[in-house]
C-alpha cells in the first residue's frame, strides 16, 4: 500500500521519484487542538505512520484555535513553519478563500473507500470547502447533573426553565449557538432561525430570551471548563463539545448525563497550508492519504467520541481502546442522539460574527 500511495502522490504532483528520497530524515510540524483530541490523532494515525516511515518525525503545535491569524501572519512574513493544520470547517473556508490553504482534489489525493467508492463520494456533503479534508463530526451539546436536579431535562429549551431546573448553567461566552438555541426556544422554526437573526428585532428577541437566564449563567471560553464546572457541582447543566463530556462521563466516571436535543454539528479536519516546498508536500500528502482512509478514521473513534467523516468508516466504529465500551451510542451522529440537530451555518456567521459578537459583549456588560 505504501508503494501505491507514493506512486499516486508522485503522479498527482508530477514529482520526480528521487525527490522523495525515502530515508532522508524529515521533521514535520502538525497543528492541532491538544488534549484528548490531539491524542486520538496521534494514536490513530501519527504513531502508526511513523512506525511505517521511521524517517518521518512529527512535532505537534497546539495552535488550532489561532490557526487563521497565525497563518495570515506567516504569509505576511513569508515564513511558513507549519506542514499540516487541523481546523474547524469555518476556518478552513476562510483560509481557502484567502488562498492560504491548498486546493485538494479528493479523488486523486485521498484514498477511496474499501469498496472502491471515490473519496469525494465517501466524504460526501462534509467536504464543505475544496481545501478541507474532514476528519470528524463533533457537536456542541449539553451535559447535566441528574443527581442534583429533581427532574431530568429532556430538551434544550429546559435550560431556559429556571423554575423546574433550578441551578446555574454554563454557556459559551460567544453568540454562536446560544443565539440559535434562544430563538428555537422562543418558538422560531429551525429553518427560519438565521433569517430572524439577521434582523434587529430577531437579535433583540434572542437577547430577551437569554435575559431570562442571564443571572444564572456561568460563561465559559475553553471547552474543558464545563466538564469541570459540572464535576464540581458549580453548574447543573452546561454546553460543551460532546467528546469532552464523553471523557468526563466514561473515562473519569463523573455523574454527568447527556442531553443531545438540538446539538449543533460542526466539522473538523485538515488543511494543507499553501506554499509548502515539494519535498515536504510529498510527505504531507502521503501522510494525508494514509491518515484519512476509512480504517484510520474509524480507528480514531476508539479514542474519542467524535463521528468519523467518511460514510464507509461508520460500520467499522468499534469499542473504546481502553474501556472496551461500544462507541457507537456515544457518537453525535448516532440516530438515537441525532433526532434534533442543526448544522452551524458557516457562511452566515462569517458575515455577522463580528457584529453580533460586539452586540453580545455589550449585552453581557449591561
Amino acid at each position, binding site marked *: 500500500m505504501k508503494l501505491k500511495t507514493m506512486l499516486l502522490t508522485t503522479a498527482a504532483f508530477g514529482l520526480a521519484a528521487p525527490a522523495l528520497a525515502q530515508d532522508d530524515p524529515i521533521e514535520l510540524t502538525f497543528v492541532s487542538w491538544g488534549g484528548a483530541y490531539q491524542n486520538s490523532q496521534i494514536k490513530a494515525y501519527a504513531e502508526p505512520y511513523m512506525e511505517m516511515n521511521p524517517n518521518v518525525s512529527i512535532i505537534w503545535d497546539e495552535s488550532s484555535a489561532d490557526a487563521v491569524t497565525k497563518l495570515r501572519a506567516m504569509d505576511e512574513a513569508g515564513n511558513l513553519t507549519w506542514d499540516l493544520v487541523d481546523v474547524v470547517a469555518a476556518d478552513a473556508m476562510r483560509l481557502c*478563500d*484567502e*488562498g492560504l490553504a491548498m486546493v485538494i482534489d479528493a479523488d486523486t489525493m485521498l484514498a477511496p473507500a474499501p469498496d472502491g467508492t471515490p473519496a469525494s463520494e465517501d466524504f460526501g456533503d462534509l467536504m464543505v470547502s475544496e481545501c478541507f479534508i474532514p476528519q470528524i463530526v463533533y457537536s456542541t451539546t449539553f451535559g447535566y447533573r441528574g443527581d442534583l436536579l429533581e427532574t431530568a431535562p429532556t430538551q434544550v429549551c429546559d435550560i431556559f426553565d429556571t423554575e423546574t431546573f433550578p441551578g446555574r448553567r454554563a454557556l459559551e461566552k460567544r453568540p454562536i449557538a446560544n443565539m440559535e438555541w434562544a430563538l428555537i426556544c422562543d418558538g422560531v422554526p429551525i429553518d427560519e432561525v438565521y433569517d430572524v437573526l439577521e434582523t434587529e428585532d430577531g437579535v433583540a428577541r434572542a437577547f430577551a430570551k437569554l435575559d431570562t437566564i442571564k443571572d444564572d449563567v456561568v*460563561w465559559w471560553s475553553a471547552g474543558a471548563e464545563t466538564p469541570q464546572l459540572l464535576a*464540581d457541582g458549580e453548574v447543573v447543566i452546561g454546553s460543551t463539545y460532546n467528546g469532552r463530556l464523553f471523557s468526563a462521563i466514561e473515562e473519569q466516571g463523573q455523574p454527568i448525563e447527556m442531553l443531545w436535543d438540538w446539538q449543533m454539528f460542526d466539522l473538523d479536519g485538515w488543511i494543507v497550508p499553501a506554499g509548502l516546498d515539494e519535498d515536504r508536500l510529498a510527505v504531507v500528502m502521503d501522510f494525508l492519504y494514509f491518515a484519512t482512509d476509512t480504517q484510520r478514521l474509524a480507528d480514531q473513534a476508539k479514542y474519542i467520541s467524535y463521528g468519523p467523516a467518511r460514510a464507509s468508516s461508520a460500520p467499522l466504529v468499534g469499542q473504546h481502546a481502553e474501556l472496551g465500551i461500544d462507541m457507537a451510542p456515544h457518537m453525535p451522529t448516532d440516530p438515537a442522539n441525532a433526532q434534533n440537530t442543526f448544522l452551524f451555518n458557516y457562511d*452566515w456567521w*462569517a458575515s*455577522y460574527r463580528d*457584529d453580533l459578537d460586539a452586540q453580545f459583549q455589550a449585552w453581557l456588560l449591561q
Partner: protein
Amino acid sequence: MTDAAIDGPVLSADGRPLKQSLRRSLRRQQWRAILLIAPLFVFVLVSFLMPIGSMLFRSVENDIVPDTLPLTVAALQDWDYASGEPPGEPVYAAMAADLQAAFEEKTHTQVGRRLNYETPGVSSIFRKSGRPVSRWDLAEDGPFRDRFIDIDADWGDPEVWRTIKSYGGRYTTGYYLAAIDGELTPEGPRLKEPDQRVNQKLLWRTLWLSAFITFCTFALGYPVAWLMANIRERTANLLLILVLLPFWTSLLVRTSSWKILLQEQGVINDFAVWIGLVADDNRFQMINNQFGVVVAMTHILLPFMILPLYSVMKTISPTYVRAARSLGATSWTSFWRVYFPQSVPGIGAGAILVFILAVGYFITPELVGGADGTFISNRIYYQFSVSGNWGLAAALGTMMLAVVLVLFWVYDKIVGVDNMKLG
C-alpha cells in the same frame, strides 16, 4: 622654547595641536560608549519601537481597498449616496474588472472582510461573487449591473457602495472611530447608542479596577514591607522568600487555585456553610465576577508592590523615628510625619509598576472575570486573534498606550517620576 611654540597652538607629544588631539581622544571615547550601548539600542529598536510603530501604522492603514478595487474607487467618485440610488453601469463594470483581478490574486475575500468590519454582510457578497464574476467576459457580457444583482441582491443596496466609497482611501480613521464605539452614518460620524458602547465601558472598567487593585496591593503590602524592613535579618529573609515563592509559581496555577478556593462549591464557601455563616443554597458569589478578578490580581501583583517598598524602607534610618519620638511625637505622628514621607518613593515605584501591569492583564480576567470582570485586553485579544481585525486591535492598543502615557504624565505631576525608587 622657541617663539613658534609660544605663538602657535599648544602641541601634544606627537606634534599635533593639543586641542585636536584631545577632541580625537574624546571622540574615540564617545564611539566606544556608542558601541557599548549599540546592542541594547538595536534590541530596543527591533523588539520594541518597531512593533509599536508598525502597530500605530496598522491602525490607520487601509491599502487593501484602493489596491484591490482601484477602478471601482475611481468610478465611485461621481456617485452620490444622497441620490438614494445604486451607482450607474460604469461602476458595476469597474467592479467586475476589479473583482476578476482580485479573484486571480485571491484578495477579493480580504477586501470583503475589511469592508465587513464597517457594514456587516459585505464579506459574504464578495465571497459569493468572486467565482461567477471571474467567468465573465468583460468586453462582451455587459451590462453588469443586473448580473451583479442576480448574484446577490445586496449589490443593489446603496449602503454597500457607500461603504466602499467611504473607505476607499489609503488611510482611514475608521478603526479609531470603531475603537471609541463610533460609527459612520450618512450624516457623518457619531457614537453608538449608550448601551452598545463596549470599548468605552471596558476601558473605564480596566482603569478603575486597575487603580483599585493597585490600592489593594498597597494596603496589604505596606505593613508587610515595613515588617520585613524592621525585623532581624534572618526572619526578614524568610519573609522575603515567602513573598517571592508565589512569584515563582506559574500565573495559571495561581489563578486556578483562586478558582478552587472561591467557587460556589469551593473551600471558602464550604467552610462558611460548615460554620453556619451562610445557608447551603445561598452561597457567596466570589468568582466569575469583579470580586474574583480583584482578589486574584491583587494576590498575583502583590510582590511588585512589596519589593520596591521593601528596598526603599531598608534605607530609611530608624534614628529619624527615634529622634521624633524623643522630641515628643506620638507613634502615629512620628510615623505619618517622619517615616511615611521617606517611604513615598517606594510607593510611587510600586504603584506605577502594579498599575501598568494590571492595565495590560489578560489571562486572569479571562479565566475568573466572568461577564463583568473582563478587561479591554480581552477585547483586543478577540479582535486580533478571533476576528482577525488587526486594524481595530491596533487602534485599541494605541488608544490604551495614549491613555497610559497621559496617566503617567499626570502621575509625574503629582508624585514626580524623579521621586521614584525601584531599589
